[in-house]
């Protein structure tokens, strides 16, 4: 047979060439990103979307950095992951304020120097935000926040009807109210409805009353949803109202044409905050610091506010000004125009917003245990 007469050298050569070609084809998406000198890799542990090109591309290009994200889907999984990973695995960590406290208590984040960051550009309310500081020391820099209220389908109920948490009990919503499956925001909302001035700092009696009130809501509930489930349920109309969420979900849906909105009811709304910290034991503390400085600068803040994964409000006043210039529509929609009568900061100043935080007088377990009981009831 003629095959045998092909000299082995040529065959090897051919194989090498073919492999190189195949490898090149497979690597094409890589090559387009790593054109020149090897960029420095920075690992980020965060909610989905924080390391996507719309947020990080400018920073990556300017500093020859490549982000390697690890996205988590729940703060508790995130903590479990950090707890069991070798120290220094994650350079920057994005987490909600409640988890910063837990991260710090367990010793997973580095102490930061406030002088490095632009707190002077922040609104005064955010300069010493509780939860991110411990005994006067800074551990995490607040980068974005948002409000939680009543999320509803605009075809089913009016804004007027949605302006009170009592709408959840409305007869026309039976079986059509959903819960975002996390106890903290849901119990907080009902706590506000009960009139507790500080929804997470309640005594035994108030806690018992809260549980009783909550249980009366159970027959109205159609389901308990995680992030993906919340999106689908609201979007396809399976649920007409959702408790425990805010613009961070409805804003994204609105952008894609869904008929949903979030409104802060008269009883008040809750505030979630996200912040960046530096992982303990990281080898790239300087670069991590640079990133935090970028994302808290005006340009970075604008990117954060317009993040494709989910929008947010920003704490940097200079960022508001830049946002009004670059994307005035979005600034108006979120309530971030300085001359708007009821813009986000105004709402906080009017006392209509309470910070979401870990329960003070009960343990986190008490609240979570009740939530499980509530689900099973």
């Amino acid at each position, binding site marked *: 047979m003629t095959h045998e007469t092909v000299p082995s050298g040529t065959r090897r050569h051919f194989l090498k060439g073919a492999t190189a070609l195949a490898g090149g084809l497979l690597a094409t998406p890589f090559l387009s990103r790593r054109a020149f000198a090897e960029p420095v890799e920075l690992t980020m542990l965060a909610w989905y979307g924080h390391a996507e090109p719309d947020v990080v591309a400018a920073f990556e290009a300017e500093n020859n950095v490549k982000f390697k994200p690890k996205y988590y889907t*729940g703060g508790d999984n995130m903590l479990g992951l950090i707890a069991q990973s070798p120290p220094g695995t994650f350079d920057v960590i994005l987490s909600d304020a409640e988890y910063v406290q837990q991260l710090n208590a367990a010793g997973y984040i580095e102490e930061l120097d406030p002088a490095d960051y632009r707190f002077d550009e922040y609104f005064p309310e955010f300069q010493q935000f509780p939860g991110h500081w411990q005994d006067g020391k800074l551990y995490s820099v607040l980068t974005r926040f948002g409000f939680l209220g009543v999320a509803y389908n605009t075809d089913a109920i009016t804004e007027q009807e949605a302006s009170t948490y009592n709408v959840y009990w409305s007869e026309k919503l039976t079986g059509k109210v959903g819960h975002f499956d996390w106890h903290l925001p849901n119990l907080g909302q009902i706590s506000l409805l009960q009139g507790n001035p500080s929804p997470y700092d309640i005594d035994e009696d108030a806690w018992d009353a809260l549980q009783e009130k909550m249980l009366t809501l159970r027959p109205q509930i159609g*389901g308990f949803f995680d992030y993906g*489930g919340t999106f689908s349920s609201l979007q396809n109309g*399976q649920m007409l109202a959702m408790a425990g969420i805010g613009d961070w979900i409805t804003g994204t849906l609105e952008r894609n044409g869904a008929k949903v909105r979030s409104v802060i009811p008269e009883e008040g709304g809750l505030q979630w905050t996200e912040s960046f910290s530096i992982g303990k034991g990281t080898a790239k503390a300087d670069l991590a610091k640079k990133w935090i400085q970028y994302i808290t600068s005006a340009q970075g803040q604008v990117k954060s506010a317009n993040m494709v994964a989910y929008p947010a409000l920003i704490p940097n006043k200079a960022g508001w000004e830049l946002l009004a210039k670059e994307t005035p529509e979005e600034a108006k929609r979120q309530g971030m125009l300085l001359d708007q009568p009821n813009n986000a900061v105004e709402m906080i100043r009017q006392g209509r917003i309470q910070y979401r935080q870990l329960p003070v007088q009960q343990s986190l*377990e008490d609240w*979570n245990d009740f939530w*499980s009981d509530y689900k099973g009831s």
Partner: protein
Amino acid sequence: MTDINEPGLGAGPALPRREPLGQVRAGGARMRKTVSVYGLTFSLPMLVWQLVFFLAPLLFLIALSFWTVRNFRMEPDFNPDNWARMLGRSVFWEAYLRTLTLSTAAAIVTSALAFPASYAIAFKLSETARRWAIFLMVIPFFTSYLVRVYSWQIFLSDNGIINSALAEVGLGPFAMLNSTFGTMVGYLTLCLPLVILLQLFSLVFVDRNLVEAAHNLRCGRLRTVFEVVVPAARVGLTIAALFCFILTFGDFVSPLYLGGGDPPTLSILITDTTKSGQQWPRAAVVALVMIATLLVIAFAAVRFAYKERGR
């Protein structure tokens, strides 16, 4: 037609022939008196692998259930409080019973729904058609279970494909999502291909002579199926049902995305428990109870499957 070289089950009662690993066997082949290399080559790898990579995590899990959580950090401890607390909660037992019932129902329903299909593929299709059927049934394994469950939402929601089609004929809408029905559809998506294949595996090798003998003795079709074919394929049918039970017992995707997390199963309870501020120890308690349950059921099922046909 089965290969003539392949022995059928009609070759006489299957004698248990378990010999000790280390003894000499009578019979002309050259045997070593000590533990044979041959035997060890096959038995050791699995043992070593599981001892090294599985036993340690398993022991860690058991130890973890006794740890305490302080300052959101898990600390080694010997604290039986986790067990007392978890086993003392009615939520736990309700979820336990619920999951047990759901998984049993899933195993029965899936086996029942799969049987006509696997029977048809084994007995009523030509060799080529059967091969295609098997290959087509394997494909869903390789498509993401998550994506398939996510896609079912489009079908089952109130404005979804099924309800829209039914609306054309003036029926419905039926609430299929966020209910036990939805969870069952999800479980079927998870298990049906596997159950069909495993049932098929046993049915295909049932000796056709047995079936023909029954027919010659004027046994009705249905009776033949239940008194000849099913017992002959008992192993495959039981193992298939067992797999279905095990898979659905621990699954959290279907109850969450199609069942609306309402009411919660044990798997959902585990995820929920960790939200109590790193309460992995309590979650470990739930996990260990699940493991023990499944072990008992698995052993019982395997015993039943492989027991000697009392004749």
